[in-house]
């Protein structure tokens, strides 16, 4: 009798661990393990076949900081972030403001804007590549009709990066808009009523009540978009592959080419750790800034 009670209690205590075991083991094997492994691998010269490994110590990291293509890819990534995030957010804030009310036409517009979430980067890339084609593209055709010259959208070192930024905004602005609409609908209506009495116009209301009301969501969105920008790969891979002249080669694109095209796993891991460090620093800075704003 005593035995069975003890057994039961033991089993009872074990239950939650059984519930979380599958997920925990998978996270350990495929997330936490590889993260720790990344530090180890970055100290070696190692290929995908994993024979002929040599210990380099911090050699890979030394190389990273003198590698012009790393600095170039970092510059491209920062440029991407500084253009994509503000463009996306300004568009999303404006549209969310216009579409907050749940009218029928607003719902249809929201559904349309959100739709590109289902388009893969591959499909998006193919599509825009031909629309912007320098000889037969639709936009090229329209440009000629309007008397603008031939613009080489996909192969011009000074503008191609902005063209891909546009594709990225095209694909994701609906998501940001949707998140902001959710936040704007949660701003208490009593605040607007007070503003009505104070007689400030529609714009005044938007800047004095709506925007402060959605600040936490806005901060969250900025943070995730900035971190996301540092991980851009798909749309670059399916459109330019980093060209022309490396002007669209982002950090992750560069990591990919080092690891899987040049077959230098150790060096690519060192680059990954630099990426992790950058993302961590950005997260910490933005998070503390957010907390400080909130306590103000």
């Amino acid at each position, binding site marked *: 009798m005593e035995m069975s009670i003890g057994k039961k209690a033991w089993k009872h205590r074990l239950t939650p661990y059984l519930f979380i075991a599958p997920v925990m083991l998978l996270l350990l*094997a495929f997330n*936490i393990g590889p993260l720790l492994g990344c530090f180890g691998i970055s100290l070696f010269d190692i290929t995908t076949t994993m024979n002929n490994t040599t210990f380099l110590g911090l050699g890979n990291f030394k190389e990273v900081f003198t590698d012009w293509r790393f600095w170039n890819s970092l510059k491209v990534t920062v440029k991407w972030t500084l253009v994509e995030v503000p463009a996306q957010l300004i568009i999303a804030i404006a549209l969310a403001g216009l579409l907050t009310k749940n009218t029928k036409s607003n719902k249809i517009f929201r559904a349309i804007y959100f739709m590109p*979430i289902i388009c893969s980067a591959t*499909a998006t890339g193919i599509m825009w590549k031909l629309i912007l084609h320098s000889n037969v593209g639709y936009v090229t055709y329209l440009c000629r009709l309007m008397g603008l010259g031939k613009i080489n959208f996909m192969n011009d070192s000074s503008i191609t990066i902005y063209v891909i930024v546009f594709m990225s905004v*095209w694909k994701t602005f609906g998501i940001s808009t949707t998140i902001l609409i959710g936040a704007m609908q949660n701003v208490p209506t009593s605040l607007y009523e007070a503003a009505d009495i104070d007689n400030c116009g529609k714009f005044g209301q938007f800047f004095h009540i709506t925007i402060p009301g959605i600040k936490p969501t806005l901060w969250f969105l900025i943070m995730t978009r900035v971190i996301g920008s540092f991980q851009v790969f798909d749309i670059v891979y*399916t459109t330019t592959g980093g060209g022309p002249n490396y002007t669209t080669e982002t950090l992750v694109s560069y990591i990919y080419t080092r690891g899987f095209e040049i077959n230098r796993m150790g060096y690519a891991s060192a680059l990954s750790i630099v990426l992790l460090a950058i993302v961590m620093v950005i997260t910490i800075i933005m998070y503390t800034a957010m907390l400080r704003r909130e306590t103000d």
Partner: protein
Amino acid sequence: MSIRIKRRLAHFPIFLLLLIIALIVLLPVVWMMISSFKPAKEIISYPPTFFAKTFSLENYQRLAKRLKVFVYIKNSCIYATLTTIPSVFICSLAGYAFARFQFKGRNVLFLMVLATMMIPFQVIMIPLFLVVKTMGMYDSYAGLVLPKLAVAISIFMMRSAFVALPKELEEAGRIDGVGEFGLYWKIMMPQVMPTMITMLILGVNAAWNDLMWPLLVTSSTKMRTLANGLALFIGSDTSEYGPAFAGALYSILPMLVLYIIGQKYFVEGTVTSGLKG
């Protein structure tokens, strides 16, 4: 003029702006879909056409000849199924335990789960690739699927859903004498079905369109998914727009149907994971 009409007129420029943006979103996709049925010559003709002058299945035939496109589609279906249904199930198990049980190490372990959310996939892709290769899972379904099963945001959202359930529900189940798993399976899980469906739909869409992991971990044509097979195809030969468009239609159409049916879940999932995450 009545006030109502005046209001309508004032709103017209806004409506026009919204309409133009809607067209910028929709027209390229519609144009690509139509173009996939144009003969190759018409696709690269100048000036470009919007509607097809002649209807043809040439691009679809050429695509099927050049790529094993139906094998790719089958693999995408397998990838999208195996990374979502089992994933939602085990993540809900964990979310349930974190929400409804008191146990030693609960907070530390949950914090660990949240911390993995901060690790970008791109940072661990190289060692993950080596792990999968060492385990002998390179270029296999196991290698494709297993690393994608434990999803931190999914666990987090399932936990929030289970936390919100009333205590009485659990107690009623316990009085009836169902076991711990029965309690989860028969009583608690059905209550969070909307969250599970949301995770499922977002997961299917993400897996179907996932480019990077299938690109890294598959090498043979019989293992490629549609998204990465097509990406490699357009990378190798940029002049093949017709077949590429046909492939893109295969890639967009199933998700478009899913979006039309489950738009509510797409939106809800995005908003809640956006707000709470």
